Each structure stands twice: as structure tokens, then as C-alpha cells.
């Protein structure tokens, strides 16, 4: 069921001045039109091939150190209803992007979903369908969705720490912001676009990045002054991190050479959060080279932490167990370390939240747990 319609923000001058869709960005869709036209002329059912974005079809790219799409392809054919609809929608989407380019507009993914109300039988049935089609277009054209003037509704995560950035805001003004001194308790909120034309790094005193799953833990570290005492940059992942959060992590890691550690709950879902940060997500495997930070390391909570620190834990649910078993067949987790970690969790049948460390008091995480773990990892 679609969520409630989000209010549309008035388009500003700055947006109108954004560069138009580059003429060649949509070139592959012209090729697709040619292909379909010739298939129809020959009496063939229209169809196209696309690389499969499934767990079975991701391959490790040695050069970039990330997991990217493999060579297996699937066929999108007008023989089936879903395939026929997606082919038709591709052309509606191309029309829409061209229209936005002509009028100097951009659109959120959510707006795109509602725009399709006017596409007659091409109308999307769910936002998943529209998001998938945009990803398909990224794959087809080897571009990012921003190149098609499409962006997600949500902003990225918030960050706290001694790093100074220069942001060109939506009014076109350039602001220099220190992400500890110039922000409140909420930190600096990453915009959905964190590319160079939007955000530049000025200087950073932070020596490493600690990416944290839950807001409560970010607050705990900030309140305890952990970022100041250890020159850390705190990044709130907010569960599965948005593209811009992962892109930001990659940029600070590559451009500022800051090590990235990931601190999450100790459960199968948190392992997946780490995998998407470090190795790249399956859904965005076509752009892993932009988003994944191969150098990122998993700090915890690990299955052995639950034992070693004797943390309050919950029993794994049936769903948790299924998720862990699925991870055993996920190529991204096919290392000896991850296998033993997953198997240990399955064996103990326990999971724990990162905030369960509060068992030993509010300062325990900053005074004992993190320093111990970070030393072990060679970060501190």
C-alpha cells in the first residue's frame, strides 16, 4: 500500500540551474527502442537482456576490492505481463526524465511513483517496482540515478566529529561547517547527494570513523566525549545505510585515508549492514565501485563478544536462524572469519543489542569495550 503522499517542496532557482541530463546519458534507451522496433518488424516478441541482481550473480572484483554484478543475465520479455509492463514503463520513464531535463526539474523516487499515475496501464503497483526500474535504468545506462534527475526522499545519516566540510546548499550558497563545532546535538545531516560538486572536505582532525547502527549508541558516545577523546568521527547508519551514507564513508576512507570500523548489534541483520558498507549490497552491485568501502572492518558486537563480555542476550528467532543460514550461502560472507562467526552465533543461538553493554554501566562502552576492541584491531 502506498504511503501517504509527501508534500512536494517548491522548486528553487538552484535546482533549475543544475546541469541538464547529459545528452548521452539516455543513449542506451534509444538503442533499446531500436531493438524492440526491429523485433516487432521481424514478428518477434520484444525482449531485452539485463544482468541479474541476485545473490548468485555477484562476483568479487579484485581490482576494486568490491563485489560487483556477475555475468549471468535474465530476459525481460513482453511474453509475460510483468516483463511487458517493465518494458513499457522504461519508455514512460525516459519520457519523464526528458521532460524534467527540459523544465529543469528533479524528482524524488516517491514522486516518480506518483507521477506514474498518469502512465495508464504502465502505472506502478508499488514503490518497489519504480525503485527497481530506476536501478534497471542505472544498469542499462551505466549511470547513477542522480544523472537522471532522480533522488531518494530521505537524507543520509548524521555525523558528529572533528571534520570540516564545505557544502553548496540548495540555495546555491557555499557554507563551511565543522561537524562538531558548528552543529547541535543532532550532528551534521548528510544530504542525499554527497558528491564532490556538493560536498568538499576541507580538513579533518578525526583519525578514524566509527559507523554505528543505532542512534542511542551514537548519543552515548557523544555524551561520553568519545569522539573528542579519541579523535573519532561518529556516523549514524540508521539501520541499513542509505546510498549517500555509504558513499560518504567511501569518500572519507579513500580521500582522507581514515579507517572505517562498523559497530552494530550482534545479530544476522547487522552482519548484512556491515556487508553492504564493506562489500557492496546485492541490489546496488552495479555501482559497488562508488558505494562500497572494502577497507571497512567489523568491530562488533560479535558472537564471541556476547560470550566474552557475558552480554544480556535474546534467543535467535526462526527468522534470525534462516537469515544466518542464508548468509552462509552468500558469497560476500564466504571467508573463514565470517563463516566461523556465523556458525558460532548459530551454535550459541544468541543475539545481543549493542546497548546491552550498558549492563556494566554507562561508561563501560567508551572506557572498556571500544578501547579494547579498537586496540585489538590496531585502530587505536
Amino acid at each position, binding site marked *: 500500500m502506498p504511503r501517504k503522499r509527501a508534500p512536494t517542496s517548491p522548486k528553487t532557482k538552484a535546482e533549475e540551474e543544475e546541469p541538464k541530463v547529459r545528452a548521452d546519458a539516455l543513449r542506451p534507451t534509444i538503442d533499446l527502442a531500436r531493438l524492440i522496433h526491429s523485433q516487432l518488424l521481424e514478428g518477434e516478441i520484444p525482449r531485452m537482456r539485463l544482468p541479474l541482481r541476485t545473490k548468485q550473480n555477484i562476483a568479487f572484483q579484485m581490482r576494486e576490492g568490491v563485489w560487483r554484478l556477475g555475468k549471468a543475465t*535474465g530476459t525481460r520479455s513482453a511474453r509475460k505481463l510483468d516483463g511487458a509492463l517493465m518494458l513499457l514503463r522504461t519508455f514512460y520513464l525516459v519520457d519523464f526524465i526528458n521532460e524534467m531535463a527540459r523544465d529543469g526539474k528533479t524528482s524524488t523516487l516517491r514522486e516518480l511513483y506518483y507521477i506514474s499515475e498518469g502512465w495508464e496501464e504502465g502505472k506502478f503497483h508499488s514503490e518497489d517496482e519504480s525503485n527497481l526500474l530506476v536501478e534497471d535504468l542505472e544498469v542499462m545506462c551505466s549511470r547513477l540515478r542522480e544523472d537522471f534527475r532522480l533522488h531518494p526522499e530521505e537524507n543520509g545519516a548524521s555525523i558528529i566529529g572533528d571534520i570540516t566540510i564545505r557544502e553548496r546548499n540548495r540555495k546555491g550558497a557555499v557554507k563551511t561547517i565543522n561537524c562538531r563545532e558548528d552543529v547541535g546535538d543532532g550532528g551534521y545531516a548528510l544530504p542525499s547527494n554527497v558528491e564532490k560538486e556538493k560536498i568538499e572536505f576541507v580538513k579533518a582532525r578525526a583519525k578514524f570513523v566509527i559507523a554505528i547502527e543505532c542512534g542511542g549508541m551514537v548519543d552515548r558516545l557523544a555524551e561520553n566525549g568519545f569522539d573528542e577523546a579519541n579523535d573519532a568521527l561518529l556516523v549514524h547508519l540508521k539501520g541499513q545505510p542509505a546510498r549517500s551514507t555509504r558513499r560518504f564513508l567511501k569518500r572519507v576512507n579513500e580521500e582522507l585515508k581514515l579507517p572505517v570500523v562498523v559497530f552494530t548489534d550482534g545479530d544476522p541483520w547487522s552482519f548484512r549492514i556491515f556487508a553492504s558498507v564493506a562489500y557492496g*549490497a546485492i541490489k546496488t552491485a552495479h555501482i559497488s565501485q562508488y558505494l562500497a568501502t572494502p577497507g571497512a572492518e567489523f568491530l562488533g558486537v560479535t558472537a564471541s563478544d556476547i560470550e566474552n563480555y557475558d552480554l544480556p542476550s535474546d534467543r535467535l528467532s526462526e527468522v534470525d536462524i534462516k537469515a544466518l543460514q542464508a548468509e552462509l550461502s552468500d558469497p560476500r560472507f564466504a571467508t573463514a572469519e565470517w563463516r566461523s562467526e556465523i556458525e558460532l552465533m548459530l551454535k550459541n543461538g544468541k543475539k545481543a543489542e549493542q546497548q546491552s553493554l550498558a549492563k556494566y554501566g554507562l561508561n563501560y562502552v567508551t572506557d572498556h569495550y571500544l578501547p579494547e576492541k579498537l586496540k585489538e584491531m590496531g585502530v587505536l
Partner: protein
Amino acid sequence: MPRTLVAPARSIAEQLASKQREISVAEFFERNRQILGFDNPQRSLLTTVKEAVDNGLDASEEAGILPDLRVEISKEGESGDRLRVAVEDRGPGIVRREIPNVFGRLLYGSRFHSNRQARGQQGIGISAAVLYAGLTTARPARITSKIAEEEGARVLELILDTQKNLPRILSEEVQLWDREHGTRIELVLKAKYVRGRQSPLEYLRGTAIVNPHARIVLVEPDGTKITFERATSELPPISKETLPHPYGLELGELGYLLKASKRENIREMLSRDLAGVSVRASREVVGAAGLKGSEAPASLSGEAQEKLLAGLRGVELVAPSAEGLSPIGPLLIKRGLRNVLGDVRPDFFAPPVSRPPKVRGGFPFLVEVGLVYGGGLPADQPLQLLRFANRVPLLFQQGACAITSAVGSIDWRRYGLDQKGGNGLPTGPCLLLVHVASTKIPFTSEAKEALAEDEDLDRELTLAIQAAARHLKTHLSRVGRRQFASDKFAIIQKILPRLAEKASRLIDQPVPDLAPVITKIMDVVTLEPTVVADASSVRVTVEITNYTARPRVLEVFLEIDPTTFALAEYAPTPEGIDRGLGRAWWTLDKLASNARTRIELGFPARTDVEANDLDFYVAGVDEAHLLGADPLPGDWDVRLPRAIIEAAEAAESGPIEEEEVDYDAAEASAHVSEDES
């Protein structure tokens, strides 16, 4: 009791005796509260409504009057735990002298010894409600009854005297009542009104389904009025009273029959007071029992009665007849379900199953099953099972009932419903009605809420339910095929033309001819019936389209239920007709690729016919290339025209499909676990 030499004073004996009686009726009630259905306030209300409604239905039917019942439940007083229940029927009314006995005396009834299918069997019912009301609120029952012969209605207030098991009339008057005849009972009792599974509303809904000839109105305490209109104005045939059959006869009952018999001797009594005993058989029975046959029936000793019963058991008798049964019948089951479930808008009403009568013990019984699927029925819940015995809904003890275990022992997965482990109640948007009719229902207990396990009953239940389940399976596979067809039509009629247009415009080219692609996508012959009903007729248009790449010569067979078939008219005129089987057939002119033809059927106005009721079979094209019809069954003995045979023999050259991964199907299943923006 210890005997004393000195007789106690009379007054004490009297006191004791009267106390004994008082204890007996009140205690009888207390001890049997549960089986009488008065164990808690919620159930007490339901039992009261149930007994009054059953009486109203029985009385109306026996008098040949279409039942018209009104049940009003309202709050009484401030305490919140008392309700006033009024149940009114438009039956024949009750003559003055019988009113106190009917409502104020336990175990008073006219049906206890009758051998026919009836709702109530013991006559405990309504007077137990009067007793319960008196015990919990000390308020009398108020009875209003008018018979057609009298000007005014008799209004009596009475209570059941627990000392004497006799009615005590507190007041009596004659009032004007604006109706020809009818009865109304009002009670104030400790009770609780709820909605939900075991509620008066559910009881009345169930009653309305299996009694489509009744009109029932319920007014709830908050003023909500719910009306179940009648779906037919035909009364069910009155079940005939049959003589008791020796199979299943108990010794006590035999004794009663002997005593009550007006026959001169036992031979005559056997052949005329019992069913299935011929004159010759009566001689054999008497002989086997070592009796003369000329004894007066009432004179037999207990020992002789036992011998007689053994004699009856040892002799071959005519099986009990089913005349005492009153099945609802397939037509009315369907109407009843449709009438009451109208707001749920189910997708499918399976043709109801009515099994022929069978005998267990000495009693005939039969099983009827109705099944409804889809629409607003909840898909994630267990199947809704509506159990009925002699047209009375059974709301309690579902788990202990033979009907439930029969449903649960069927592997519903084979019929298209989910079922954990292949037994127990299946899950799905499905409602199953099971009605058992018998002159003696084998209840597990006097509570009359569950049927006892029995081999013969179980076999009949299973056969009937399976027959209904097979209809469900057929329906589901039809739905699957229809979805497939509607997807294909959406592609060729809407999506493909637009896709061609948009792709062509993007590269500035003319739109190519789509016909060859359309036949490739469809690659089937479709047959689509459309039913249009208006005031003057019901018309069915059957469109046959050849969406394959080559011309087709087809033979189309239509099969309908023969009664409906007899009403049909056709255009064009069929090649042949078989009225007995309800079949008509046509040889169509050669149908070119992408060409279409139609057959039209006409029925008189208001004929009950739906697309689902029409079965089509087609020869001249194989199953894989046929949509909306089935291939001609092999066991039909029909001579096909030469052209059809040749067409069928020509090998179908289907397109050779590469083994390809469907991108969109893979996409849909891949992104369940990961969730990111």
C-alpha cells in the same frame, strides 16, 4: 433411609417429601446446567434464543406457515448483567390450555416419541429457559399467543414451580394483537450479549442459511437491526413421521411401544407398529423368540420382551426408509448461502452436494455439503466450518465433533488449500457448510453440540466433503487459467500497442504490424463466455478467437446441467444435441489466424445460469493451445468430422523456448531480505 419403628409425624414426612421434590427439579437443573446449555451468562442467552427460535420454526412449518421470526434483545435495569429477550413468531399460536405446559414444565413435548426429523427432540428446551430466568432474576415469563380462531391474544405471566415441576400462572388477560396468529415469549434473565463465533447473531445467521424459507430479524441491545430475508417462499416438505425401525431399538423403547400398542396381539403389533417388519417376518420373529404370537402386547414380561428384541435382531428386515428425512437440497443450500453471505461477495459457490440417505443403527441419515470460496472471506484464517444437525446450527464443541474430524482427515492440499501437515482444518478464504439430517442424530451428549464418531457417518461425511472439495479444485484451476488469459489479453490489447508506439516514436519510425507478435504471445485458441441478464432473457455470448499462427477447424461442445439445457436456444443451430446429457455441439467454419467467431445461447428471464455452469470442450486443437475450454474427454463416444481429425493429427509445432531466466521473476524474489534506499 433408616426405618424407624415409630412412624414420624405426617407433617414432617410431607415436608421432607416436598423438599425432596424441590431439590429434584432445582438440583436436576443445577447438575445439568452444562448439558442444558446454561453454564454461563453468554451461553444462557444463546440457548434461550435458540430454544425459542427452534420452537417458532417448528411450529410455523408444521402449520404450513412461512416462518417469520423476530428476536429482540435489550438491556434490563441498571445492573448490566440482565437482559430482556423477546422472541416472536407468526406461527399458528398455542391454544390456551397448552400454554402453561409448553412453557412451564420440563420434559413436556409432543416429539419425544415421534420418529421423524425435528429440531428439538426432548422438550427440555424452552421451559428450561423459563426456569433459568426465574432462578436468576425471579421474573416470570410473559407469553403472548393468539390463534386464528380467537379474537384476542392470551397474555400469561408464569413461572416454573420448582417444587412441582408445574407451571404457576401469576396473571392472565386477553389483549388485542394486530396479527392473525403467532406467539411471543419474553424473558428477563441473567445473560451477556456478545458478537462473534458463539453468539445469537451467528446462530441466527446459520439458521437463516439452512432455513432459506424463514425470515429472521434480530434487534441487538444497542438497537442495531439485522434482517435475514427469506431466499425462497417454498416451505420444505414436512418430514413424514415414520414408524420406529427395529434396528437400533432399545429394550426400554420396545417396552414402551408394547405397552402403548392398541393391537390385539404381538404379531400384529410387530408388523403394524414397527417399520420394516412384514407379516411373514413377524411370524419368524415370534418363532425365534419362542413366543406364540397371540399374546397381548401389554402382557409381555420383561424376560419375554428381551427375547422378542433378540428375535427382531436375528431376522432379516426391510431397511428403514428415508421418508422421515427433510434434506435442504442443493438448490436451497446454494440460495441460503448466497442470501446470507451476499455482503462477503464470494467468488465461488460450489454446487452443493446432497448424498443419498443411508442407515445407521435403526435410523436413516443423510449428509449435505455446501462450499463457498474467495471474495471477502479471510484468506489467512482457518476454513470456516458451519455445522448443522437437522437444520440447527451447532456452535459449540467443534473440536469434539465427527464433522470436524472428517474435514480434518481430508488432505486439502490436493484440492488447493493450505493445510499444515496435510491434516486438521485447512487455511484459506473458504466456508464449508455440513448438514446432517436424521431421525436420530448421534450426538456425543445431551448438550447436542457435537456428533459422535461413527464409521458409517464418517464415510458419508468424507464422500460429501470430498465431492465439494473437487468442485473447489476445478474452480481454482479455472481461476489460474483465467488469470493467465487475462494477463495475455492485457499484453496484446493494451501494453504491446503502446510499447510499439512509444519505441517507434523515440526513433522516429512507423509502428510495425503487431499481428504476428500477437499470435506468438498468445499462441492459443480462446473461448470466452459472457453472460448478460436483463428483464426479458439471459443471453450468453461465447467468443472463440484463433490466436495461433495457423488456421483452425474446430468442433465445440457445450455441456450444461440437463434441466437448464432444456431451456436453451442457440444461434447458430448446433450440429447435434443430446438432451439427456445436456450437450450441444458445433463444427465451426475454418477460423483464420487472428480471426474470431461467436456462438450465442439464450435462456428465459431469470434462469439461474452463470459462466461457471457452462462447460466447454474443444476438438481440433491440443490442450496447450486452448484457453477457456477443455480438450474433448477421451471417453466421450463422439464421431468427429474428418477435417477435425486431420487437424488434430497435424503435429503442433509450438515455439521452441530457450531456457532463459525470467529477469522480472528473479528480481521479485531476490529483494526480500535487503532493505535499503
